[in-house]
């Protein structure tokens, strides 16, 4: 297994800060905007963004929820094993709000397609935007693109992008993993 670090340390922090400022540019004080992290790994990213935004905008209340998309996936019964579901915690109304969907890696786009379906079960948002930390470009199965991107990478289908977080894995780091070729 070969590992290549895409993002870590200072650069990781700067990237998150930059994304938050881009959000503020479009959503000012977040009075009509909510953050929704896609379970499970997007919610860690959303937590971080919420912390960062709250620090930059101490007078704004940044609402953040978690969305689980397991039951909306299009690969149910098409792959081995069962993806276990996580919880949904959306304790506010998304009807008429601007929703920022947050996930760690954008790859085929199928997760986001499912998330859009899942989101509609909670109401009709005014607008939905997508923020991802890593965009694996040129690998989409559906026409979905992110509005806010931490970093774009070119990768092979056989490679894996792994994002680890300080809160859960002990360090902020993005790795590109590839099988060693013989």
């Amino acid at each position, binding site marked *: 297994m070969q590992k290549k670090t895409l993002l870590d340390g200072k650069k990781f922090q700067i990237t998150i800060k930059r994304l938050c400022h881009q959000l503020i540019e479009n959503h000012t004080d977040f009075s009509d905007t909510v953050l929704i992290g896609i379970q499970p790994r997007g919610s860690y990213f959303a937590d971080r963004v919420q912390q960062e935004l709250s620090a930059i905008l101490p007078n704004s209340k940044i609402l953040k929820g978690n969305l689980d998309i397991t039951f909306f996936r299009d690969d149910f*019964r098409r792959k081995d094993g*069962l993806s*276990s579901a996580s919880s*949904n915690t959306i304790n506010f109304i998304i009807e008429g709000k601007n929703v920022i969907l947050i996930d760690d890696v954008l790859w085929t786009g199928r997760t986001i397609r499912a998330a859009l379906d899942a989101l509609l*079960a909670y109401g009709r948002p005014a607008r939905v935007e997508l923020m991802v930390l890593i965009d694996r470009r040129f690998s989409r199965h559906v026409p979905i693109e992110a509005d806010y991107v931490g970093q774009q990478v070119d990768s092979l289908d056989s490679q894996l992008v792994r994002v680890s977080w300080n809160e859960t894995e002990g360090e902020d780091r993005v790795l590109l993993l590839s099988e060693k070729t013989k």
Partner: protein
Amino acid sequence: MAADRLSTRHLLGIKDINRDDIELIFETADNFKGVINRPIKKVPSLRDITIANIFFENSTRTKLSFELAEKRLSADVVNFAASSSSVSKGETLIDTVNNILAMKVDMVVMRHPYAGAGVFLSKHINAQIVNAGDGAHEHPTQALLDAFSIRQKLGSVAGKKIVIVGDILHSRVAISNILCLQKLGAEVMVCGPTTLIPKYMKDLGVRVEHNLIRALNWCDVANMLRIQLERQDIKYFPSLREYAMMYGLNKQILDNLDKEIIVMHPGPINRGVEITSDVADSKQSIILEQVENGVAVRMAVLYLLASQRA
């Protein structure tokens, strides 16, 4: 952490599943409980699955609950009641079901008056079977939703004391409940007149008590069963009135206990027989929560079984 798939292709009885299966069903049901409390109570998971609900015996709750669970998973549903079908013209069970399966049905939810009907069917047909009650044998989804309701109310099932009161002899709910609760590590007691408690209860490791007050003082949860007059071919006790006097739960008994116990009932209730109205409608009763949880638990069972279809 539970396993990520069930160890069985059918749900015929609690006897055939293990603790990991039950935990997995509960964890999945937690998620579906969230789903059915949302403005849009539907997910698309089973949209390419057709389910036949085949009921050879009357049912309100179970049938509605299964049907709602199926619809909220976006499955296509066909309903079949034996009373209005060709069964009365002499068709056999396998023929009836095979004809339904020829119409491309993937799963069968069946209730049948004879014990073992589900097991029999699972050996002869290709579809997945969910047992919705077979005679006085098993009623697995009821046991699962009862245990799920206890877990929700008390935090866990392990170590809790549950007494099942009433007509144990004719009750599929009692058997499935005993097996399910024991698998989850609870202590189980049955309580009722000697004629309605089968001798093999002791072999199952279940305590037997014939005095209602003593049983209630022992337990954390009391599950009150209905007297199944339709299954009783002989008289097991002198009169319903006498049964109600000795084994009926009323508010006075409940209030005089040392602690607050939880009262459950699988329905249908015979108010004034096994349980009085003021108990059924009291704060300690979780009868309607059981019904709500029933839909979530059945969604979990159907979802997990469907995930095993390649």
